[in-house]
């Protein structure tokens, strides 16, 4: 990838981080549940741009950790662990690049993120770190619903405009004819 492309990826990571911390907190319902970081990262994995996904998430995580109005919940750690697990899942379990695979991966990403958030909150309690919070299960469900919608839109958008996920079938007449 060219340097300009990496700069674009970095800028996108920072913008998504600012969106999740600064914009979503001030905007009305349902914007606070519209999270962009994980769906974009999952799409990058589906497009086989693993290193781009890691850089994007690292920059988003740093932005969230720096600008979040709550005490640091180690967003960068959560995001990197989530992407490691999702990357493994995408190459060993959901190996096809379909809409269903995208849905499964984003659902898994959101659930793992929620579990890690809860784990950090729990460990923080044990270590007497105050100010850590975790979102309620229902909030996570709302966020997951919007994740699925965003992922579907991104997937369909990529399929329509770039033909990245289309299966290459030669355009011949009677392609299923066995005779």
């Amino acid at each position, binding site marked *: 990838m060219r340097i300009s492309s990496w700069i674009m990826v970095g800028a996108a990571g920072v913008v998504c981080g600012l969106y999740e911390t600064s914009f979503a907190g001030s905007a009305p319902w349902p914007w606070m549940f519209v999270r962009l970081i994980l769906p974009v990262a999952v799409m990058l994995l589906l497009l086989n741009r693993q290193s781009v996904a890691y850089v994007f998430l690292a920059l988003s995580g740093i*932005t969230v950790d720096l600008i979040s109005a709550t005490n640091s919940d180690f967003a960068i750690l959560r995001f*990197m662990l989530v992407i490691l697990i999702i990357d493994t899942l995408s190459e060993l379990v959901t190996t096809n690049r379909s809409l269903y695979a995208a849905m499964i991966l984003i659902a898994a990403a959101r659930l793992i993120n929620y579990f890690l958030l809860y784990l950090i909150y729990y460990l923080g309690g044990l270590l007497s770190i105050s100010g850590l919070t975790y979102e309620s299960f229902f909030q996570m469900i709302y966020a997951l619903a919007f994740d699925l919608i965003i992922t579907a839109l991104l997937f369909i958008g990529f399929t329509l405009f770039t033909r990245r996920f289309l299966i290459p079938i030669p355009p011949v007449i009677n392609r299923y004819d066995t005779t």
Partner: protein
Amino acid sequence: MSKKLNRKFIMHRRSKTALIVSAALIALAILHITGLLIPVEDAGRSMLAPFARITNILGTMLSRRFEKHDSLTQCEEKVTDLEHSLTGISVDYVRLRSLEEENAVLRKTLGYVQEKGYDAVMAHIISRSVDPLQSTFMIDRGASDGLEIGMASIIEDGVYIGKITTIHQRTAIVTLTSDPSSRVAISLSGQHRLIGLVEGKGNGTALATLIPQQESLHENDILVTSGTEEKIPANLIVGMVNKVLGLPTDPFKIATIEPLISPNYLEEVAILLPKALRPNQ
């Protein structure tokens, strides 16, 4: 065979990535805990603050645009309530104006120099908590501007909205009155003694608690800060009593509090800074 090789390659790539990511995260964690990253973190926050302010303003604008409007009946009820409150406040206002004039004349006569002892530092809100149960926001002023943990954040010349709970070099986190972790000592307007605490309950609500039964507390009473906390001056308006709850047999009274100003649409706040803490002194 090729499938097996492919799988082996994937596993090799994965363990290499996992190793790099883990090493980077451990290094980051160590640097963060030891405090070596503080200058870098502050520089990052300073760089991101202007952009965060813009996104925050956009979010607030959107929030104002889609603000829920009350129905006609609710509006009529509100108007009736406000008219009742206005009548009481007008009487108080006239009485206070005459007292203020009398006070000014007396001070002049005595040659008394009025010193409030507090300065206000204006700050922009750059981000807010996404969780509706939490009520915190980050401002673009920090320790380098003379701010400290515990200082009061106000709006409109004396309406208390929260206090600083986390401080960085160039930014700070303000916890609002409605946050579940927030506690502020209160007194009734005009009475200079502590009567209880206001505890945040999340979702923009707060309760006045630990008020002894013998204290008289009624709907529409104004609650102010008691001044018993070191960095929070007395007589900053915390809210208005909405409803007094509990039974006469309960050891303490509880009351629901209505904030005078909704902090959701704020873009700027003031932090009260004791003059002795001004950075240029």
